[in-house]
């Protein structure tokens, strides 16, 4: 797992891959970012990570931190600036794996209500972002054109639909399943 994570990370860092992923807005947002998060998740693996046990016992602290990082990278501004400012780019490559790591560590520890709350929040925040990217007449980013914005908006909208259908499936058919304590 850990080796895989490191391999992944190196691949993502490779200039060709990095530059081609970042040249297209939708790949930047919906491929590079998730893959960097995945690196953190893989790195964490199924190990227990003793040093986290003390301060992330119930998962709340870790999750809040992870969500904070996520919100930062959901701001259109952050991605845009990462293209021009090297400090931000470094921070991106450091913070997103960290996010994945913390997420993986915290998710099984936090309570069900917190999980549902996060899920529902993503639903409405993705909806908001879809609305923003699809609807606003201004070009939000310096580095990406307005039609790229629309593609990103469409992807957000599709994720909302998927999240919604999945939610309906869970609450009306599947139930909480093994997740219920």
């Amino acid at each position, binding site marked *: 797992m850990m080796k895989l994570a490191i391999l992944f990370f190196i691949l993502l860092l490779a200039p060709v891959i990095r530059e081609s992923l970042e040249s297209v807005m939708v790949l930047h947002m919906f491929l590079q970012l998730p893959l960097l998060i995945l690196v953190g998740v893989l790195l964490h693996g199924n190990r227990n990570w003793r040093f986290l046990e003390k301060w992330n016992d119930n998962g709340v602290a870790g999750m809040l931190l992870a969500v904070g990082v996520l919100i930062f990278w959901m701001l259109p501004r952050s991605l845009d600036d990462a293209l021009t400012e090297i400090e931000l780019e470094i921070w991106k490559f450091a913070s997103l794996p960290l996010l994945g790591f913390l997420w993986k560590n915290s998710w099984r520890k936090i309570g069900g*209500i917190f999980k*549902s*709350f996060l899920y529902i*929040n993503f639903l409405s925040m993705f909806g908001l972002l879809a609305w923003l990217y699809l*609807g606003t007449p*201004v070009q939000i980013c310096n580095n990406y054109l307005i039609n790229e914005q629309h593609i990103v908006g469409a992807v957000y909208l599709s994720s909302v639909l998927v999240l919604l259908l999945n939610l309906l499936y869970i609450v*009306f*058919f*599947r*139930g909480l399943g093994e997740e219920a304590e």
Partner: protein
Amino acid sequence: MVHNRLIKNYLVIGGIVILLMMVFGILMLLAQGGGLSLSPPTFYQFMTIHGTGMIGAAALAASAVMWYFLSQHVTLSKRIFKANLILFLIGLVLVIIGVFSFDYASAWTFLYPLPTLSAKAWGIIGALLYLFGMLIIGIGFLLLFIDTGRAIIRKKGSLAKGLGWDVIAGKKAEKDAPEPAIIAGTMVTIVNVTALIAGATVIMMNIIHTINPAFTFDPLLAKNLTYAFGHVFANSIIYMSVIVVYELLAKYTNRSWKANKVFLIAWSMSTIFTLMIYTHHMLMDSVMPKWMLIIGQVFSYANGLPVLIVTAYGTLMIVYKSGIKWDMSSGLAFLSMFGWTVGVVPAIIDATIVVNHVMHNTKWVPGHFHMYMGLGAVVMIFAFMYYLAKVDGGLKITKLDWIAFFSYIVTMAAVSVQFLVSGALSTPRRWATHTPEWMGPALFGGIAGVFLVIATTLFIVHFVRYVCNET
């Protein structure tokens, strides 16, 4: 009894806020009636705080009714219940500061782009305080309904089963149908989580637009989301409070209120209708797809009816020849069913597109919802207060309570009818200033309102006496 301390806090806070908001209502009517001079900005601040406070406080108290009875059947989290109360208070304080210190006055519907573009009537700070206040209140309620939803799913398997769809489908016997508290709880969970998702999106959108007006959004979608939130959330109040009618009458008559298939179908229908009919707020938006408006019209006729009919019928049946002893709480419960029934009639009339073209935005509209809120939903909350005071505290009723009971009926009816009369006279709603021919009903309503406040105070005093006795 179950977590009584918190239930009492909810009701005392809810009751007192309702009482205070009534005072703002009276001030508005007196101003419209020419008996008091209020500057228009002040009027709109009052209108904003009245609408927000009433809906918020009634929803808060109603959620306590629901929580109390639902928690007898499923396991709810006390911590979440407490968190909701705390978030409500924080949000309320922000809203109050926004309205009174920073002149925010968009009405509780905060319709985009009004929060930002107020022609300098208020500034960014007022708008942000109000919007963040609403967001925080919404987060509290979202947590609460996530908890109820999860608890129901844990107990029943799914929300579908919470609504008894397996019984409707014949897979399960009618005698194993979910309890009314669970059915209502499921319905409210479904509609309110939906409403709060829409609300969070549109509030965040307004916040973005307030901070940076260069980001503009589609106003039609904004209006849809706003009413999908506001209409549904306000509507849910009565579906939470009505649980007291089921439980109280069952207890008082020593009969059980069992859900049968018709009852289940009615609740499922009202669940779906409630989600669809917010479009009746869009009847004047000619750019809306026609089919949506037709849905808005057709289902507004039918919206509350299924639940109303099975509940009203059930109420008569359970009371009939039961030898029930009438006291304040059963009297209030009975009154609330009457008020609800009468209160939907003007709504049904108004939801007709032809009529709506005339009555839209006249005081007919507040006429309808003051009647069904004031004589229906809020009365259920008072019924619950008397129920707790009696069942849990053994508190005796005095003559004064009965006087309050009858004065409440007369004066609340007067306040509602006054709005309807104004509407019939084509008085526009939400106008700070009235022409002389519109003033009569408003002035009358303002004076009736004073007695209404006295009656309500007596209700609350009774409850507070119980709360103080107990500890």
